[in-house]
């Protein structure tokens, strides 16, 4: 088998296709799954919904006025299409049933009728005008970013979102949560055991309800697109340019979405979580978050186990997307960390390398001294490496590191 095929169809670790399906069958899942699936189909067909609470067949109504208007537009046009479909397909199937040679029907020979042709040009045009009026209204509403109460800057990056509250300096990154991250990278792990698999983040975006929030969107690398269906829209985040959008959420709650512009290998793994809070709770959150942001990192010594465990978290958040969970990298694109001279050489040069970045790798000077110690200890003593050293936060911290 050609090498590319093996690489591409990398049956993760040693599992083969056959083994996988065999195990699947042996566990008896296949029978239950089929039944479950069948029941699901019937329930869904009846519009009763399944066990998954947030599952819909139709577009969701959402929690903003705009999303409700869009829902209404969607339903209006859907019903118009259904009506036209019933008319056209009804006529066609009537004809198919009755006007067939086997029933002895003799073909008529007419082949034009100007009146009819004018009618079926003009009526659709009028229907379209009828659609365009509400659509224009909603479009204008969606576009009206004036008079906002606060502004949040959203920056898409491979592969997380960066949120900056321009009114109060809150600034944080929002990554896929660790449970989903581990599960999608582990053979045989069960996605169903992870709550909100692939739709959960470590730090959600928090906003107050009933306030007009203006978003400015941009990107730090490639094009991303920020979409939370409950808010009713998505907007592209273009590198070097700024887009604007707004929302005003009616109901407190947690709303989930995903990146919707293909942005590379981990495009499917950069979700969005928005938590809308009542104003007093939001104010409390702002206070707490600002305080946390002012806290200096704890530079006290850690045991080797602690360093390795924390280091793994830092690795999962910042490195794993490119260098992979085994440290093997991607042949031809991304260097391996396993056995890498840079990773296993002097730690000072690794430290300098990480802070400076390269043309292919972003610089990681955003990490603090504590994280540097943890990450480097992990990379040098795991992922197939065994340098045997351990680095403490005090060694790796720069003088200005603690005013993070």
């Amino acid at each position, binding site marked *: 088998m050609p090498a590319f095929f093996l690489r591409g*169809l990398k049956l993760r670790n040693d599992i083969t296709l056959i083994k996988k399906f065999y195990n699947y069958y042996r566990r008896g899942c296949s029978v239950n799954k089929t039944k479950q699936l069948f029941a699901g189909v019937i329930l869904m067909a009846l519009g009763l919904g399944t066990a998954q609470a947030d599952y819909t067949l139709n577009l969701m109504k959402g929690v903003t006025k705009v999303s409700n208007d869009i829902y209404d537009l969607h339903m209006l046009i859907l019903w118009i299409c259904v009506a036209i479909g019933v008319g056209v397909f009804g*006529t066609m199937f009537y004809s198919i049933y009755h006007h067939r040679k086997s029933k002895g029907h003799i073909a008529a020979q007419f082949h034009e009728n100007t009146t009819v042709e004018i009618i079926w040009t003009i009526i659709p045009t009028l229907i379209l005008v009828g659609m365009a009026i509400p659509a224009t209204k909603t479009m204008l509403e969606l576009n009206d970013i004036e008079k906002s109460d606060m502004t949040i800057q959203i920056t898409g990056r491979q592969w997380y979102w960066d949120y900056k509250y321009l009114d109060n300096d809150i600034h944080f990154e929002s990554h896929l949560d660790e449970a989903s991250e581990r599960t999608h990278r582990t053979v045989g792990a069960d996605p169903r055991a992870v709550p909100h698999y692939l739709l959960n983040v470590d730090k959600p975006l928090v906003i107050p309800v009933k306030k007009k929030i203006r978003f400015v969107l941009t990107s730090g690398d490639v094009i991303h697109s920020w979409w939370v269906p409950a808010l009713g829209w998505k907007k592209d985040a273009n*590198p070097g340019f700024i887009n604007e959008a707004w929302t005003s959420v009616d109901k407190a709650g947690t709303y989930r979405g995903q990146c919707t512009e293909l942005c590379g290998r981990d495009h499917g793994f950069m979700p969005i979580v928005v938590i809308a809070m009542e104003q007093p709770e939001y104010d409390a959150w702002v206070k707490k978050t600002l305080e946390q942001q002012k806290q200096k990192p704890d530079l006290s010594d850690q045991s080797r186990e602690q360093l390795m465990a924390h280091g793994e978290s830092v690795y999962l958040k910042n490195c794993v997307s490119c260098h992979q969970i085994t440290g093997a990298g991607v042949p031809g694109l991304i260097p391996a960390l396993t056995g890498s001279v840079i990773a296993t050489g002097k730690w000072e040069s690794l430290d300098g390398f990480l802070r400076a970045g390269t043309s292919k790798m972003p610089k990681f000077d955003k990490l603090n001294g504590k994280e540097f110690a943890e990450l480097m200890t992990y990379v040098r003593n795991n992922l197939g490496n065994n340098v045997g050293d351990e680095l403490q936060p005090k060694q790796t911290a720069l003088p200005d590191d603690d005013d993070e």
Partner: protein
Amino acid sequence: MSAVIDEHDHHADDHHDHGPAKGLLRWIVTTNHKDIGTLYLLFALAMFFVGGTMAMVIRAELFEPGLQFVDPAFFNSMTTMHALVMVFGAVMPAFVGLANWQIPLMIGAADMALPRMNNMSFWMLVAGVLLLASTLFMEGGAPNSGWTLYPPIVLQPITVGKALPFAVFSVHLLGISSIMGAINIIATIFNMRAPSMKMMDMPLFVWTWLITAFLLIAVMPVFAGAVTMLLTDKFFHTSFFNAAGGGDPVLYEHIFWFFGHPEVYIMILPTFGVASTIIPIFARKPLFGYASMVWATASIAFLSFIVWAHHMFTVGMPIAGELYFMYATMLIAVPTGVKVFNWTATMWKGAMTFETPMLFSIAFVVLFTMGGFTGLMMSIAPSDFQYHDTYFIVAHFHYTLVPASIFILMAAGYFWLPKWTGHMYNEKIGQLHFWLSAISVNILFFPQHFLGLAGMPRRIPDYAVQFADWNMISSIGGFIFGASQLLFLYIVIDTIRGGTGEKVTGEVWENAAQHSLEWTLPSPVPYHTWTTPPTMVPTEHVLDAH
């Protein structure tokens, strides 16, 4: 109608050889429109299975949540290559193959106007597709930026390895090949029609291809230009699409879709032509509204140039742009509606029979209309803010491509194979192929509407568990659909090798000769035809006018 054969005898002394060259060389050096048509069609069929295999990889990975089989980057390569192979390797060449076979037969021409260029455009296509396919074997893999090749992702060293220049050069070759094919078709239609055939006497298939050929000439250079700019941005430090150098990545999107929107109509207009050819024959009625069909095709082609940014509603355009592109896009529903109404009116009060080509054509009208409905829904810009880049659009364009373009290509195969080979295909297996395809294609794509509306983005290798059920159903549909196409392969081979053994008449289908010229020739069609042009044009609307 044996004029052709007689003609052959008269000139036998003047030319040393009227038959095909012997052996493999025949297929390499041929300038015969029928041979080149066959090459195009067989190549397209092979690529249909290559692209289909990629689709099977995609559906296998999406069968369950979690990553089972492929790496996310390879998954992205599969979606990218599936699209490129299907668009440039399967659908477009298949229609060029049909054009090569049918246009000279239908207009009474002895061959295409530029036979040597015809040969060259086929072999450049093969070179282009092989160049593209070669990237699959390279370190770093095939392009994985989506078939739109958007910068900056396609220029990023950690995403696309060595593949970019190969993909760009491949696009150049495919573009040149398409343009040469289009020039040839236009030259043939304008210059080689039977003397008595006026433009408004031409079969609809010829009309739709004429219009398509103009679209090709207009937009392939635009795409070639766009990818060349990618190439210079990557290797010669230009900044067309790099904001840091004063460029704009959105500029690429505009250029790409100025090509991309007409491109999707390049794949659908000839489809309309074939449907308009098949339906009247099995309804035993003239096509309803011939003139309005021509004008609708031309209007759709015109509109295709001025609606491109509806692929970009969420990119951040000024409100005036959003509204303009919304209104212009909605307008496309009018001529498209006219076509659907005309096909329905053609069936109305006919005396229909339901052989395999007719079944595929009816399924095309119904399922293409469903794709049209979702297209109309997405033309509404504010709603598109929800639908864009989700499985809803995946469902939409697959409805307009698979049960539309692909079904019509199948229909064309069943319809003309007996003419080309002189053998009848096996109707039972044909019907089985139809029903399996028609049912499974809906199991495959219909649930994708639900997935998109429920919030599943496209181009993701893994998904949240609430999308699991419909994905599994969709994958099952996909596997059945994929397997069913092997029946078509069997039928093609079987028919070429003798089929049912039943000798077909020149007309093949009842009274087909009243509809179009090719049915006045014997079956199988002789290697050389219309060496003297036909004197009478038997399209029934023309007969009626006389």
